[in-house]
């Protein structure tokens, strides 16, 4: 099988597994909302990886837009319009707008400076959510609201009571996001991003407007991470300042690296491993943090290209 066939086969396999997840996950001792959680965090990790793995830019503050998406969705449903779809839309708009503005400010920085400035903005949003008690609920979080059944006119989808229905909603959003990201990566724009990742100076010498490309890559990745955030809030019926904190951002980075930064589905695998491993180990022992920590250490030392980095021995992408 040549490379393209292999890729198609892998894609097909992934989609089949995702489409049928609620059915086989329960049999393996999982539960549907675990699957939803994996999907939502996978979306966040894949969005981050658009920037990290494919453009070569590390952001450690993506949780800010994740959280903005979450609060946007939650506050919309709680205070404005009791509609799930509107909530998702508002969450995405809020996260994206913030990212667009902040992106213009930070796009000239690189490396550790870029990472730290994303942390700076992330933390500022975190403290706003944490302290603005009257609006965001502060440390208690935004509660007292729930995802509402979607009224499509001809039918009502009860995503609140029916976990499977919610899972498929998440899957639909995931599919849309992933399709867009994949299309972008295969386009000339995507190829340019790879060029920037490989050698930024050379790309600049070739006349590519590097900053503008990075800004756009940043924006795309934040659009989808805020979508993930909105879905996360719906999953929990809760929005939480912790979603904005730098360690949440760190989790996304870990998922991307764990699964393989250089591959498209890597972060999905990474998220699956991260979530399921933590879920499983924390049920078995209170010392799960040691095991997870040890796991990170071993992965970084021996499998730095992640799970999929081992699977594919060929050159990146």
């Amino acid at each position, binding site marked *: 099988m040549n490379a393209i066939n292999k890729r198609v086969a892998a894609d097909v396999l992934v989609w089949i597994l995702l489409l049928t997840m609620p059915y086989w*996950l*329960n*049999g*393996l*001792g*999982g*539960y*549907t*909302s*675990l699957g939803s*959680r994996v999907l939502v965090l996978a979306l966040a990790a894949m969005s981050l990886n658009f920037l990290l793995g494919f453009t070569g830019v590390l952001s450690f503050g993506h949780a800010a837009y994740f959280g903005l998406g979450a609060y946007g969705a939650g506050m919309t449903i709680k205070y404005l319009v009791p509609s799930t779809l509107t909530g998702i839309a508002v969450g995405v708009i809020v996260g994206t707008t913030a990212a667009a503005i902040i992106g213009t400010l930070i796009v000239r920085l690189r490396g550790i400076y870029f990472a730290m400035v994303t942390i700076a903005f992330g933390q500022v949003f975190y403290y706003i959510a*944490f*302290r603005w*008690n009257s609006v965001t*609920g*502060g*440390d*208690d*979080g935004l*509660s*007292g609201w*729930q995802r509402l059944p979607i009224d499509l006119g001809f039918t009502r989808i009860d995503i*609140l*009571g029916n*976990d499977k229905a919610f899972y498929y909603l998440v899957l639909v959003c995931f599919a849309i996001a992933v399709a867009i990201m994949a299309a972008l990566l295969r386009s000339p724009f995507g190829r340019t991003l790879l060029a920037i990742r490989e050698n930024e100076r050379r790309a600049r010498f070739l006349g590519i407007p590097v900053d503008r490309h990075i800004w756009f890559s940043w924006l795309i990745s934040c659009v989808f991470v805020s979508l993930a955030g909105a879905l*996360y809030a719906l*999953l*929990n*019926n*809760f929005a*939480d300042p*912790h*979603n904005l904190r730098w360690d949440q951002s760190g989790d996304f980075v870990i998922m991307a690296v764990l699964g393989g930064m250089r591959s498209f589905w890597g972060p999905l*695998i990474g998220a*699956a*491993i991260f979530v*399921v*491993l*933590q*879920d*499983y*180990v*924390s*049920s*078995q022992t*209170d010392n*799960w*943090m040691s095991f997870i920590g040890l*796991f990170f250490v*071993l*992965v970084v030392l*021996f*499998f730095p290209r992640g*799970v999929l980095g*081992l699977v594919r021995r060929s050159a990146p992408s």
Partner: protein
Amino acid sequence: MPKDIFSQHLKRRTILKAGLAIGAMQVTSPFVIKALGEEPIKFGLNDPFTGTYAELGKNEKIGCELAIEEINKKGGILSRHVELLSEDSTSADTGTAVQKAHKLIERDKVTFLLGNVNSAMALAIGEVSHQAKVLHIVTGGHTDAVTGTDCHWNVFRVCNTTRMETNSVSKLLFDKFGKKWYFITPDYAFGHTLQQGFEASLKKFGGMEVGASLTPLGTSDFSSYLIKAQAAKPDVIIFLTAGQDAVNSLKQAVQFGLEKKFHIAGAQQELEVLEGLPPNARIGTWVFEWYWNQPNVPHVKEFVAAIKKKTGGKVPTARHWFGYASVWTCALIANEKKTLDAVKLAKGLENFQLPPEVALMPNKVFYRAGDNQLMPDLYVGHAVEKGPTPEDLFHVDSIVKGVDAALPVSETGCHLKWPTI
């Protein structure tokens, strides 16, 4: 037993197969088909065992475990064995708490949900249990909303509301120490409602609030706030901080010598905090929700001894009692009503009184109809640097009945909506 099979696989497995392989391992419990009567009844405890609240969660778990053992010795619930499943909600990530609640309810099919210490998580998992129509006892989250504005028919709470805590001690502080109060308030719902409770008391008695400092949750350095407090020249500095914040703020207050110039007091205090303070910082007038040294109350000595056996000699705190009482509540009501139906049990818990060997308090302890809040006793007293025994760090001066200190149901903002059967 399933657990042994899991650990064997854990050793053999390579690191990479972690993800899906672990998922596969999760359920290889041998499917022995048991008669329905032998299927154990499960309690799910959703509490933090890592992070800031780890100690409190662990203590609640120990209390739960003791109750489970006792229940099984007495024949279980409806002649069935009971068992406790506990899941770590972490101390900060509400998403994990919600996920674990789903796990306990959907996958493990627990009949009763218990938890959480963290108020935000208690609210969030209350939504989950409400959706799933599972009886839920909140063991340790104090935010008023749990039995107030966000109350649900299936959610009951064992620990006090903030209003109960402030009302129980405010008169004493006013009469004994003076009318000018300064608040050190942690900036989250718990702190705010405590302050509001005290402010209501001040208004009633004609006292004066000379100032307040909102301290960010997790503050390590309280000096600026303490400086402001000193400048305001109050009679009492009221510390509303809890947990780690309480340890830091009191430690620093004593380092500044403030206890020599002002009275130090507050509402809720816990033995875990006093144990974490250096001896010279064990000061102040506080309210405890339960205390182990109650020589005149029957059954307490046995409870203390039983817990000491489980903790290797440490005395039980209010947290142990919260876990213990929560589990016993479920067992007692289920055995009395001879059903596991959540709605019937919840209805049965209205005005349900805990028997003395579970209540472990001098007065009548019952769940109030209308908001599902337990009405226990509150122990008003002061911290002592060195008690008659090394663990006796609190001296109880008086006992206040919770039902006297609580807001009437109409003022809590709670409107229970029962499911239409």
